[in-house]
């Protein structure tokens, strides 16, 4: 998977895959591949979410700490 993919792109691709499976617009032959891809995307999104959460959390923690220090 390219490193440059964004969360938004990943979600979009994921949604496409889910929709393709839903609409059976792919064959059985590709299913595995597609699901595999979806899994990858999901993992990517998950990690991205976690990372973001962690980052935001740390920023806010700093903010709070400072606020306490200032006060």
């Amino acid at each position, binding site marked *: 998977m390219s490193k440059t993919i964004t*969360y938004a792109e990943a*979600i979009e691709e*994921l949604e496409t895959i889910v929709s393709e*499976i839903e609409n*059976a617009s792919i064959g*059985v032959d590709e*299913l595995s591949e597609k699901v595999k891809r979806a899994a990858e995307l999901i993992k990517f999104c998950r990690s991205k*979410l976690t990372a973001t959460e962690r980052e935001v959390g740390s920023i806010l923690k700093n*903010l*709070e700490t400072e606020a306490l220090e200032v006060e």
Partner: protein
Amino acid sequence: MQTDPSNVVQKQVFSLSEITESIARMFAKYYASPYWIRAEISKLNFYPASGHCFPDLVEKQDGKVKSQVRSIIWRDDLFRISQKFEEVTREPLHEGIAIMFQAYVKFTSEHGLSLHIIDIEPLYTLGEMARAKLETIGLLKKEGIFQHNKQVGLPLLLKRVAIISAETSKGYNDLLVTLNRNPYGYHFITKLFPALLQGDAAVESIRKQLIKIKEVIGQFDAVLIIRGGGDEVGLACYDHYDLAREVALFPLPVITGIGHSTNETVVEMVACINKITPTDVAHFMIAGFRSFEDRVQISTQKLFAEVEKTIEWQTAVFNNLVTGFQQSGRSFVKNEHETLEQIGLDIRESVGVAVFNHRIALSRFETALMVHPGQLLGNCRMLLHSQVKMLGFHKTHFINGHSGALDGLGEKVQLLDPVNVLKRGFTITRYKGKAITFGFDPEPGAIIETETVNEKLSSVFAEKKPK
């Protein structure tokens, strides 16, 4: 009337005495007893030397003499009659009075007709005097001048007075003594206008002096009519209309001190002030000075007190104002200082409040920042999770779909499998290894193979017949 002298002897002629004696006899016969008669004394004709009195009597009607007779009161009678008369009427017998008298009507040759008065009823005269007095009052009132002198008004100070009195009168003397010996040092100016003060002549005498005073009226504050010390007889003149009128109309206030104890005379009634005795008049005048001096004294005292009060009050007002000014001047600056410092405090407080509010606003952002990214990420997570779920769900569906389609195809194939036909009892006939079809027409005796479910049967073909 002319008399012819030649005719004289032919007539009966009487001497005068014969006639008068005849009349005298007739009078003596017909007028033997005395009569009660009403008349007015027109002239008294008193002769002090003999002590007899010969009053002329008249009866008047509408101012004209209707009847006139001479009369006689002998000395002895006169004394008795006069005493009784004066006792009752307070008037001597004098001209102009109406009397009711008892008299013999006498006629003598020497004196002719005369009435010999032996008694006078004073009550009649008294009644007549009262009537005359009422008449005077009535007239004055009718003329509207009865109150005239009272309305002239008394000056505050009776300083300059014209005195109508007799120089020798005790009343006049009393007045002067009382005035001049007043203990207050008041100074009065008096001027005597001498006059008769009783009897008939008094009316004219007093009037004459009043007229004289009128000429120098500006010099006087009032006119005093003073009488006193003498007897109280002969005051009827003060009821006289002419005198009363003069007094009533007099332009200066008239004060009377006629000095008697009987009824008020008309002059006293119309006078501005009546004080009975001259001493009373003097006291009245002094009292006027006294009250004037009192007024001056009271005003003076009040002036001192009020001026002092005014000065005190004005000073107090002024001092209050000055104190108020000093206080307000100082407190003004003080208040202004307080106001200014309050502004400083207000600024501190409002800045505090403003900064606090800004902090609150800022903390709202912080709170939002704490909450919303978590929410956003949570939502993303949920969305992702649902995609995973969908993936599982759709996969199953997908596989099932394909599996179903496969099953359908399988069924169809199975149905069409010839094995299944054989199972129902059908057979397949073959000739030379090939299943026979329409148009098969072998030779009889050819070996044909029949396949059933379980076995293969070989048979010889016989014939072919159309169905």
